[in-house]
């Protein structure tokens, strides 16, 4: 398994999966985050989130949530339990500051090719398979808004070689260009659909280029974060890991 960090980006290769993520804060620092977390010899987690607010305050809370997320995975790696526990312990911290955080947690079992998804108030991931894009349906309340996590539970997908998953924050789909029109989920779905066959890092770069074309260099109000994960081998095959 390998994880490479470069500036605002990270590239992961593990368990027949490649991942590429990028986060650009609207200010010097922001509340968006993404993580690849190795769990055991067959499972890796990918998480994306957004802590309410801007600047250093949001960034500080974001670091607390990130740390707690790793700890919750260590205690019990069942994705729903991770989110429930994180909502308890992290929610307490968030509420102290009148804040909340969105989170989408994906667990990928490279032996079974199974992807599990739990959502806490975050934009739903997109799944690209056979040139078609599907929007994950799981929903849930953001962390810190209620004492007990409330959501539709765990959603499960079986991924084949070549399938990809795209995670993003609201700053991407709500980005605006010179007009008031937003980039939007429909445009994102279309550019994702066109990426069938590209590797994860190329997909990420192409989506960000399309966003730049749309916004025409206009500075954005919110942080923008994008993560692409792609299955590179059949379930159970470790490929070049």
């Amino acid at each position, binding site marked *: 398994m390998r994880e490479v960090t470069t500036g605002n980006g990270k590239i992961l290769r593990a368990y027949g999966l490649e991942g590429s993520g990028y986060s650009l804060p609207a200010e010097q620092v922001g509340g968006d985050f993404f993580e690849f977390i190795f769990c055991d010899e067959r499972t890796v987690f990918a998480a994306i989130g957004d802590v*309410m607010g801007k600047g250093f305050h949001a960034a500080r809370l974001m670091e607390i949530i990130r740390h707690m997320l790793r700890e919750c995975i260590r205690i019990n790696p069942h994705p729903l339990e991770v989110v429930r526990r994180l909502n308890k312990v992290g929610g307490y911290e968030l509420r102290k500051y*009148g804040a909340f955080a*969105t989170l989408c947690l994906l667990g990928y079992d490279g032996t079974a090719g199974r992807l599990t998804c739990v959502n806490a*108030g975050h934009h739903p991931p997109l799944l690209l398979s056979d040139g078609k894009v599907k929007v994950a349906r799981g929903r849930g*309340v*953001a962390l810190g808004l*209620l004492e007990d996590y*409330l959501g539709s539970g765990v959603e499960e997908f079986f991924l084949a070689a070549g399938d990809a998953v795209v995670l993003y924050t609201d700053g991407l789909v709500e980005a605006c260009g010179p007009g008031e029109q937003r980039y939007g989920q429909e445009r994102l779905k279309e550019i994702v659909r066109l990426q069938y066959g590209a590797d994860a890092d190329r997909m990420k770069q192409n989506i960000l280029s399309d966003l730049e074309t749309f916004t025409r260099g206009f500075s954005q*109000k919110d942080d923008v974060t994008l993560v692409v994960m792609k299955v590179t081998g059949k379930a159970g095959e470790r490929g070049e890991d």
Partner: protein
Amino acid sequence: MKGVKIRVRQKKGMAILEVEGELDFSNVEQLQQEIQRRPEEVVEIDLQGLRFIDSSGAGMLLSQARHLYRQGRTLRIVRIPDFIREDLEVIGFFRVLEVLETNPNA
């Protein structure tokens, strides 16, 4: 318009706060103070003129709703533009309001 403009109207024991513009972390306190200033049993927030709301705005509305429900009062959010409703739905905003209405300590 940049920033937020709040117009207050009163109607039979109810305050109506019409919010126009962009509600974000830089001006969220303005609306929060206006809500806290109202003595009426029902405070209605009319969002028809709202063009943008960020997470600070959404969080403030939920914390004020919780606060009013605890006092046995009501915060009602009405005439929400579709694109803003969609953003609020993602974070579970309306589900939280439903829960708080029956249990403000949830």
